[in-house]
């Protein structure tokens, strides 16, 4: 569902954020994207969602090439950005209505999903208030609801667990599993190795714009016997 092939991205012609990076995410897969700060995770996310353009390489999402069909790609994606502080003077329901109209979610489906997701994430009381009054975690939750509103086949989530309380983090993980069971794909970045360990079918480890590892965590642990995931990660990224 995601083909990221030989992608290179340079900022200001000097900083090479991604250097000939390639990876694939198949339908039914949850793929974790791991790497130290400044390794190129957010750049990859932004390239996948069309926020920035690659210098070279090919990006295909849900069968659509981002250069040729950017709108189709964007319709196929549910994206959670790294900062949830967005349109804070809108009420939660106004923001969700905006998202529903942008993604053309039918009225009945929209009502049903808002009620269901709001209850799941404990936002039923807060949604009718301006988002300015929300805590960081509540803002993150509404971004999660907004990203899932139109049931997109591909979820691209940049650090989605940050700010979520344990119950909401659990609910999101459940939703990710349910989503992939239906043949869809989830690609998310995280710093929490335990989350990756318990949730991901596969991980992609990145450092300085290069892919260091692309495979299952089991294989990674087999290659480095008697070592914790944390140690393996540190060894890989501090080489």
């Amino acid at each position, binding site marked *: 569902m995601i083909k990221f092939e030989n992608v290179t991205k340079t900022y200001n012609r000097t900083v090479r954020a991604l250097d000939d990076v390639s990876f694939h995410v198949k339908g039914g897969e949850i793929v974790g994207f791991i790497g130290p700060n400044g390794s190129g995770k957010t750049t990859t996310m932004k390239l996948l969602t069309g*926020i920035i353009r690659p210098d070279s390489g090919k990006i295909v999402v849900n069968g659509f090439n981002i250069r040729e069909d950017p709108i189709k790609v964007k319709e196929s994606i549910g994206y959670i950005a790294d900062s949830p502080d967005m349109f804070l003077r809108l009420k939660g329901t106004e923001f969700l209505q*905006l998202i529903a109209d942008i993604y053309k979610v*039918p009225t009945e489906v*929209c009502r049903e999903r*808002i009620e269901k997701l709001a209850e799941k994430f404990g936002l039923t009381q807060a949604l009718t208030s*301006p988002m300015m009054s929300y805590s960081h975690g509540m803002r993150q939750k509404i971004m999660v609801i907004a990203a899932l509103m139109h049931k997109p086949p591909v979820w691209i989530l940049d650090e989605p667990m940050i700010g979520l309380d344990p119950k909401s983090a659990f609910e999101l993980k459940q939703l990710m599993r349910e989503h992939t069971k239906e043949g869809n794909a989830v690609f998310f970045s995280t710093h929490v190795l335990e989350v990756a360990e318990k949730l991901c079918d596969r991980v992609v480890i990145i450092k300085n714009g290069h892919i260091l590892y692309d495979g299952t965590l089991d294989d990674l642990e087999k290659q480095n016997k008697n070592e914790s995931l944390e140690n393996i990660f540190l060894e890989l990224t501090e080489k």
Partner: protein
Amino acid sequence: MKMYLRLVSALIQGVEPSDKEKKRNRIFYIVMACIAGFGIMLPMTFFVGVIIYSMTGTLSQFGTVENGVEIFLHLIAAFSFIFGLNVMFSVFYFSGDIENLLPLPLRPYQIIASKFTAALMSESVMECLVILAAMVGYILGGNMPLYSWLIAVIGTFTMPVLPLIYCGIISMTVMYFTRFIKNKDAVNKIVGIFTFAVIFGIVMLISKSGFNSDKLVEALSKPDNSVLAVMNVIFPTVPFLVKSMGTGTLLDLLIYLGINVIAVTVFMLIAQVLYFPSVVGIGQGASHSKKTLTEVIEKMKLRPVTVTYLKKEFRLLFRTPAYFTNCVMINFMCPVFVYLAYVVHQQTNFMESFIYGIHSGNEETVLEFVLGISAVSVLVTAVNCIASSGLTREGKHFSFIKYIPVPYITQLNVKALVSIVISSSGMLLCVIAACIWLHTGIKFTLFCCLLCLLSITFATYFGLYMDSVNPKLIWDDELNALRGNYNIFFNMAVAIVTEAIICAGAYLLFRFTDVGALMIIIIVFVLLMVLNAVSYLLCRYKATKNIEHI
């Protein structure tokens, strides 16, 4: 002192564009700065200098040589006070850096002093230029001695201090005594509305007093001017500065500087006492809805994306105090200023001949009226900066524009529509009122409205394009998105220069050729349509490309 300077430097860097932004568009900035400098700042300062020069020359015959520059400096101080009030509230209480400054081991007066200095430096550039121009006009008009130049330089940089200190003291006092109001949006909006009410009140007072521009010169020629006497009490620095320039008395200069020093000291003492109790615990504005989620979502229905996007833009403009005051309310001040212009000129020869000219169908007067409508429409659209900050206002979440499946041009069109609707609301009111008052007839009124809309649409699309070149996306608070934003200033400069060229060209064509006023009006109309097409195409092809590369 070291701490103060470091803080000022850090705060100034938050307002100025980063070196990276500057480098990225060096040529663009140079061209725009030249247009702004030679097209607006230089002509404006020259105009002010010439007015004060001739006024000083005239008043010297009556022995009241300093009255002209004195009343002008008072006027500048009053404007600085009125427009500075909102800025001081925002800078001291509602800016995003407060949360970072409060936990630091800084004394209240250190925070206030550095914030005040940073605001003064970014707010007073244009004001300093105008003050300098007025003083140069005064020195040349009154044949003042050499030392006057030195005093003029000192005055230029110190004159804007006192009005802003007043604003600072008022903001701290109001916030101290209204600590219980935790809704910062409400307080911010009330300050904006209060400012508007003060301006409206002043205009009404002038209107009722039967004041006009002829009476102004007459009043200034008298040594015992009551208006000046009142203003001298409000801004006591002005008379001493003007006197020291004229007589060169060191004592006057020392008194001038002394008043400023005392004002700063009092301000710092007040800050030490009032600032922390008034700023700590200030809450974010948010009213809680009484409706339940079920009630709200029952009313939800799928709407076209343009409608919902339009609603979002309007909501954010009206609900954000900085945008509400600077982008929305300013449009409704336009009719007030037009009324003020009418009041000041009523029963003067100029106004009488203008009214007679319109009634009798005098070609020159009709042309002036039509060109005036177009010029003011462009100016209002540029000043309210709804279009020229359309992308800047997205700030850190600019990426939203890029990852939603809505074509960029659709989003730009919606942003343009918001600007056109809000800009035309005040302007059309003015145009229709003027046409009714001048009995111009329905057809002419409709034509004027159409011309007004064409001018606004041109300025809107051009403003959006200008903002797309290099939007200022990193800002602490919403006022920061508008304040010190070069895009807004440059857009204003280009729009004004373009409109000035059109108006001057049309007028010169009328004066120096045989082409009639009607034909010139048609040419202007067609030219505006062409400019509309050009600015729209700039948005459609260039601005969308610019967005892609941001």
